[in-house]
């Protein structure tokens, strides 16, 4: 991929992030669930063990205890329980490391009212504690249980359990962290497999956009992307078909124009030949017939020009127009163009004495003659031709003092058969002159632009490379 990464970073990044999030969250959730289950099991085990131990110790010592108990008895019971313990009987208590004040009321109530061992976890000063409380019961031989009034409480430090749980949590997080690079690798692989068809499709679309209508992507698999690929291929196919049809029609139309022009030449050759004969014989005719003959001659000349212009345009369209560049003096060529057409007196030339350049003299003559001819016909004098050059650009400017080009005309003056004013119909122009002029400029690698002078009046600017080069020959003319 040459310039793809930037184009696809968004999609790739999103796929990557989504995949990694899902994977890591999944792993984290699994690890967390495991950790919570293990924690609960640990807590339950510690609770059960504490309850059993304390119950067992009390049971073991109970038959040896006096009832009602005195302080010594309570102390013995407290010692038997071990650790932080508190034994209460009526107003008498025996405590070590456990103050009755820290016991939650609900625990006291549960112990005082019932005949079950109860436990409760509390957090005091940031340390988790397991509180175990139980009444000591008197059992009758028939199994009836009555409270003896003795309450036993014990507190067990859960710091060890806490540490174990912390270890579990750390391991869970570590598991999730270990999954992370794995998830990234997998995500990259997945993104690649998803993005490759997308990239192929993008490349195909770009080639289509660049005009390669034969571009297609091979569809892979049968997923949505394959559907999309098929759709794009179908679209490209129909675009290609229509484009080919259009090109064929356009080529047909152009060939038709070329053929028509060509076929017109033979009768025109005869007409041209005989018109001159006719021209020399008009003196013998009466007035009307002479006028008719003169009209026929003039129109034949016009027809010849039109056909020649059409042929020229056809050559541009077919790409068979050839540039024949040679060393020439631009100033001399311009002056010669004017002189050959008898325009020298009507046109002011602003040009250096010599301006060496390389171009196709015949084509530039056509352009300059067309521009000056237009200026003389449509504008007002003085018509001015300016020739100047930089190191690599030759510039020929033709301007007049007429009304200038209306804005809505400027964009169309180079269109074929575009007639800005009705007078041109009778002016002898073929309607192709400016189109041919611009084609000639472009054949040189230059351009021809139309605009208006600051002082009013139309101004055409021809720019050419100072050293025009003949392009590589195209297909041979037939």
């Amino acid at each position: 991929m040459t310039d793809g990464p930037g184009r696809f970073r968004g999609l790739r990044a999103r796929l990557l992030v989504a995949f990694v999030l899902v994977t890591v969250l999944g792993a984290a959730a699994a690890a967390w669930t495991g950790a919570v289950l293990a924690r609960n099991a640990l807590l339950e085990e510690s609770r059960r063990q504490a309850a059993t131990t304390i119950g067992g110790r009390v049971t073991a010592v109970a038959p040896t205890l006096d009832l009602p108990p005195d302080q010594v008895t309570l102390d013995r019971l407290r010692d038997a329980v071990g650790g932080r313990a508190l034994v209460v009987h009526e107003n008498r208590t025996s405590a070590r490391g456990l103050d009755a004040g820290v016991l939650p009321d609900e625990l006291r109530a549960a112990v005082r009212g019932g005949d079950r061992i109860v436990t409760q976890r509390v957090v005091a000063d940031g340390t988790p504690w397991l509180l175990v409380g139980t009444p000591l019961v008197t059992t009758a031989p028939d199994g009836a249980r009555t409270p003896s009034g003795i309450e036993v409480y014990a507190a067990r430090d859960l710091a060890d359990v806490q540490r174990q749980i912390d270890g579990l949590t750390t391991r869970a997080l570590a598991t999730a962290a270990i999954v992370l690079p794995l998830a990234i690798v997998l995500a990259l692989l997945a993104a690649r497999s998803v993005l490759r068809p997308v990239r192929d499709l993008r490349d195909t679309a770009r080639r289509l956009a660049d005009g390669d209508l034969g571009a297609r992507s091979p569809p892979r698999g049968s997923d949505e992307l394959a559907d999309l690929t098929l759709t794009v291929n179908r679209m490209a196919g129909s675009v290609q078909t229509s484009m080919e049809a259009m090109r064929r029609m356009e080529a047909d139309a152009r060939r038709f124009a070329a053929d028509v022009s060509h076929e017109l030449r033979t009768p025109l050759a005869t007409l041209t030949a005989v018109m001159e004969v006719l021209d020399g014989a008009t003196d013998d005719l009466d007035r009307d017939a002479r006028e008719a003959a003169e009209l026929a001659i003039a129109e034949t000349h016009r027809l010849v020009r039109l056909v020649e212009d059409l042929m020229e345009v056809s050559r541009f369209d077919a790409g068979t127009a050839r540039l024949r560049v040679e060393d020439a003096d631009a100033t001399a060529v311009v002056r010669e163009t004017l002189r050959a057409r008898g325009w020298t007196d009507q046109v002011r030339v602003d040009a250096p004495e010599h301006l060496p350049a390389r171009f196709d003299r015949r084509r530039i003559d056509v352009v300059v003659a067309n521009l000056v001819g237009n200026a003389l016909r449509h504008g007002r004098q003085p018509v001015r031709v300016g020739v100047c050059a930089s190191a690599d650009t030759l510039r020929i400017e033709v301007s007049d003092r007429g009304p200038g080009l209306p804005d809505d005309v400027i964009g169309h003056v180079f269109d074929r058969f575009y007639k800005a004013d009705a007078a041109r119909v009778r002016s002898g122009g073929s309607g192709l002159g400016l189109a041919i002029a611009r084609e000639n400029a472009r054949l040189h690698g230059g351009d021809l632009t139309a605009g208006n002078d600051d002082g009013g009046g139309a101004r055409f600017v021809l720019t050419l490379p100072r050293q025009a080069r003949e392009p590589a020959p195209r297909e041979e003319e037939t």
Partner: protein
Amino acid sequence: MSDGARRGTPVPGAVPAVLVAVAVLLAGCGVPPSGVIDGGRAPTGVAPGPTLYFVGPDGELVAQTRDTGRLGTISDALALLLTGTQDPALRTGITSGGTTRVGVTHDGDTIELHLPLAEYDVTPRGLDQIACTALATHVQAGGSADTRVRVLLTVTEPGSDAGEPRGCPVVGRAAVR
């Protein structure tokens, strides 16, 4: 929507999701406080004194609590039983030879009593007295009422069933006088 804006937040909602996940994870660790949780039957075993069984006027077993201030062991209770009673209304089916030391062993669900008596020192009612007294103490100390008792005598007659495991006909039913 510009490309850059999309790139800024690759997946909308991803950041809150991560925060929630981390919060849940952190809440999962540590030891949370809890409510009151049941932890099984409360311990038992304190009593004003052991319960002894003697024979009433009609030959029935009568329970008598001997006020020693504490329940004591089965052995203690049987020693008191062998000593007899001062109550004129009660008799005993045990003829004690003065020795009151009783060995007590637990064998599974059975309590074995090694008595310093021969079979002829003990009436069948006397065997019930022994079994009931031992079982009553056993129950009062938190033991099961279904426990069986084997009374082992020093001398047994042939064909005697004195050594068979037995229960007590009244423990669980007899009224304490």
